[in-house]
């Protein structure tokens, strides 16, 4: 009896949600494509991104979809981190599914392969996690919502210089990976600009586990900090190696986007303490929109979102807005609308530059690893 | 012309500290059948491998057809007219009998890569001629079906095919490593007949065999090895009555029986 009553009480609420959804579902959906790494070694990135998209998609469709009530849908294709599969996916989304816009792919490498395909067919393609240099130079249909390393790293280094008085550093980067190599290129430029002296530049392979030779050399040069462009695995190894060699505590590691992951603290433990990274967003950001997003994400997926999920979340709203502004699900119109879109999401205010990169960098925060958690540094 | 086709001069080979063949010298006259016999472990197959280039001696020289061939790899020896068969038949099992024999003609069939690709008139003519000759060789050794898969042939026919394949390379000297091994008496007598016809064709034969009847019946001259050393040489009659040979064989008869017993256990 009681059960029935609660069920009855819940009815009107459910009905109100259903009516909006029913309205949206009665019309033909607008399907956009997404190419992400859903399987294979790097699928943690792709899955975070997909989660972000799906969470935003729920919200968009609950609020009446796009273009006056048409539901928005995403056709996912898996790239598995492989550039050939990314090309295949892009071709099939365009030629077969006839999507007016593509989200992704996950990695810069994949964008270099798939971007030209979309660009050639004049289909806008929007990267949410591709931070390497030269992405948007592929062509006028290639956009990205992720802040490139070139925007984030200088902020991190400048903050470290101002707050810690860093004058001379050692640089380490993974030279066999496009992401870490392009991160290094940015670091090099930023260090020169800020007048910080580079004592030595050391490289390693992204699958290496032993960094003692490089770190021993660095230790003998007495740097104020070590600037590292690495992915999670190697980055954590460097932090552990640094601790094993007994570096003075004041020598911090300053990382690029690759170290911007809770996983680093999980692997390196207290060896990660004091590591600085810059990020367009982090989970502890004190901002109402951001907190709401974190709560919703936790409720749906039972875990904390990362920056990839946040970027994806914002991007879907940006794209939905552009489709509405365009007034039709046509690639050319969406492309023009994207260029003009203004949106304020969990990462802060957003618009595209003329070169289709994010215009605003005010959202960048520098964060510090401390006992397994990120905390704001600046 | 010295009148010898093959000469071993003080040939020694050591594996680790052990000498498998020690200071062995003998020579083979053209157009004869020469036997190499001795108890198990006497170094016969080792000597064969040295002659055919599958192993290299630590000391001494080997001359073939007047040339010193010590440093020649096996295919070069084969190209110059040295053919052989193996103790455990080494057939190209996937190939047909005809193709096996054609493969044996490798050194003599013309046609490089260009000719094969362009299918020149001369290439096709050479192939046709080779096929005719291969069929003739198959007929000579008594194999009826050229298109049979070699791996499917009965044991005795595989032996014949291996001889046909070696014969196809048109050898001046043919080494036969226990050709009658595993054959029944009627197969053996067929083989003897075949080898005699080979000899009549002008091919010099050097053979290792355990079957004494076979050896005595076929060979013009015999070299006897024991423990890697040459202990006797001569015509079948001379060798048969040589006390050292008798002693070696008597000694090993006992040893062989012992070994057989060990295997059963």
């Amino acid at each position, binding site marked *: 009896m009681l059960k029935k009553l609660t069920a009855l009480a819940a009815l009107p609420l459910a009905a109100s949600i259903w009516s909006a959804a029913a309205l949206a579902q009665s019309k033909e959906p607008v399907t956009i494509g997404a190419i992400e790494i859903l399987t294979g070694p790097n699928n943690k990135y792709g899955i975070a991104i997909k989660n972000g998209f799906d969470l935003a998609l729920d919200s968009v469709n609950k609020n009446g979809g796009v273009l006056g009530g048409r539901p928005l849908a995403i056709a996912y294709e898996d790239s598995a981190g492989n550039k050939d599969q990314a090309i295949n996916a892009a071709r099939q989304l365009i030629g077969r599914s006839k999507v007016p816009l593509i989200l992704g792919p996950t990695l810069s490498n994949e964008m270099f392969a798939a971007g030209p395909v979309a660009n050639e067919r004049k289909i806008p393609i929007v990267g949410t996690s591709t931070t390497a240099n030269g992405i948007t130079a592929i062509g006028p249909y290639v956009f990205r919502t992720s802040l490139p390393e070139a925007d984030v790293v200088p902020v991190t280094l400048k903050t470290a210089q101002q707050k810690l008085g860093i004058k001379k550093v050692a640089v380490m980067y993974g030279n066999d990976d496009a992401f870490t190599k392009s991160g290094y290129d940015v670091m090099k430029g930023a260090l020169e600009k800020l007048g910080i002296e580079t004592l030595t530049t*050391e490289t390693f392979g992204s*699958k290496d*586990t*032993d960094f003692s*030779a490089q770190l021993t050399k660095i230790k003998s040069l007495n740097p104020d900090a070590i600037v590292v462009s690495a992915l999670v695995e190697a980055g954590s190894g460097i932090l552990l190696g640094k601790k094993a060699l*007994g570096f003075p505590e004041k020598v911090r590691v300053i990382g690029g986007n690759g170290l911007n992951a809770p996983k680093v603290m999980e692997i390196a433990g207290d060896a990660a303490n004091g590591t600085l990274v810059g990020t367009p967003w982090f989970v502890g950001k004190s901002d109402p929109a951001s907190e709401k997003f974190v709560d919703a994400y936790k409720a749906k997926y039972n875990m904390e979102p990362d920056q990839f999920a946040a970027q994806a979340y914002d991007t879907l709203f940006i794209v939905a807005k552009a489709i509405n502004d365009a007034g039709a699900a046509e690639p050319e119109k969406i492309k023009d609308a994207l260029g003009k879109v203004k949106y304020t999401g969990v990462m802060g205010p957003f618009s595209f530059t003329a070169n289709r990169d994010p215009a605003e960098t005010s959202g960048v925060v520098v964060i510090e690893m401390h006992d397994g958690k990120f905390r704001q540094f600046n | 012309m010295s009148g010898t086709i093959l000469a071993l001069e003080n040939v020694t080979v050591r594996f680790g500290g052990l000498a498998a063949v020690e200071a062995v010298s003998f020579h083979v006259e053209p157009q004869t059948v020469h036997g190499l016999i001795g108890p198990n472990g006497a170094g016969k197959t080792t000597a064969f491998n040295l002659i055919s280039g599958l192993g290299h001696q630590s000391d001494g020289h080997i001359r073939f057809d007047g040339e010193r061939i010590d440093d020649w790899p096996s295919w070069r020896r084969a190209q110059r007219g040295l053919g052989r068969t193996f103790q455990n038949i080494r057939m190209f099992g996937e190939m047909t009998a005809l193709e096996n024999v054609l493969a044996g003609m490798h050194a003599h069939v013309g046609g490089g890569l260009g000719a094969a690709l362009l299918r020149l008139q001369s290439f096709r003519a050479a192939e046709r001629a080779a096929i005719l000759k291969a069929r003739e060789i198959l007929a000579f050794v008594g194999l009826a079906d050229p298109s049979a898969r070699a791996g499917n042939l009965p044991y005795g026919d595989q032996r014949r095919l291996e001889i046909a394949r070696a014969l196809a390379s048109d050898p001046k000297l043919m080494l036969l490593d226990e050709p009658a091994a595993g054959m029944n008496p009627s197969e053996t007598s067929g083989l003897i007949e075949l080898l005699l016809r080979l000899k009549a064709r002008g091919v010099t034969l050097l053979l290792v065999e355990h079957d004494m009847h076979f050896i005595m019946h076929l060979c013009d001259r015999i070299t006897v090895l024991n423990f890697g050393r040459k202990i006797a040489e001569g015509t079948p009659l001379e060798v048969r009555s040589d006390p050292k040979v008798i002693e070696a064989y008597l000694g090993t008869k006992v040893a062989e029986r012992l070994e057989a017993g060990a295997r059963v256990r």
Partner: protein
Amino acid sequence: MLAQQLVNGIISGATYALFALGFTLMFGVLNVVNLTYGVYFSTGALIALYATRHFGWPILLALPVAAIATGLIAVVIDGLLLTPLRRKKAPELASLMVTLGATLLLYSLMTAFIGTDIQRFPPAAIDPSAIEIGAVRITRSQMLIVGTAFAMVALLLALMRGTRLGLAIRALAENPDVARLMGVDVTLVTFFVSFVSGTLGAAAGILIGLNYNAIQPYMGEAMMLKGFAVIIIGGLGDIRGALIAGLILGLLEGLTAGYIASTLKDAVGFLLLVLTLWFRPVGLFGRAAAKRA
């Protein structure tokens, strides 16, 4: 700095040697380049990880149990893949190919089930303290690696040279048919060697995983490339050679990174490999009876 670099080199060299021991043993005795060896490295580390994490076992218990379990897996894989080929007297490349396929299969299955995320031993598993001698620092887990590498080499050499089993293993290495005639139970000895190799591979994986604290299915694959270099430089099947080649490689890499350029660190091993193949294909200490075709 030099002293620390030399110590670094010896540690990473011991790592390579420890890894290469079982690999070279497998090749030397069983005459197969068994590529599944890298999988044992990963498997051992993952089993030990599971045991410490989920059952709270101390590492001193988890290590031998995981190593033995992996050794048994190695026996099963040998029985399934290589025994049939041996029976058929298949060419040695067939066994290389079958283990290549199996390796791909096993790695992919492992990642399908547990993902490629790096996992770590619980912090309590390792004593993080280090010893300082002058300017040189060495952690306890590093000392454990170096100690184990030398101990294993000594143990293996003693086994091979001083026992009846060792004699049987050597006979098998020389010639399986002759060994059979001598009364050696070839199947049993083959399984024993697989078991020992698998155990060694797993032990290496656990110790190295403890030291760098980064465990994931593909950790064995990265080591395999160094492993190849070490066993070819040391001579295929040569236990002493594996130790010395491992140390040489570790030292050269460390010194190259420290004094020349870290970009060349990985190239050193392969340069050494190519030079070995050109000038001394039997390896540094290999006997003249190389496996020439």
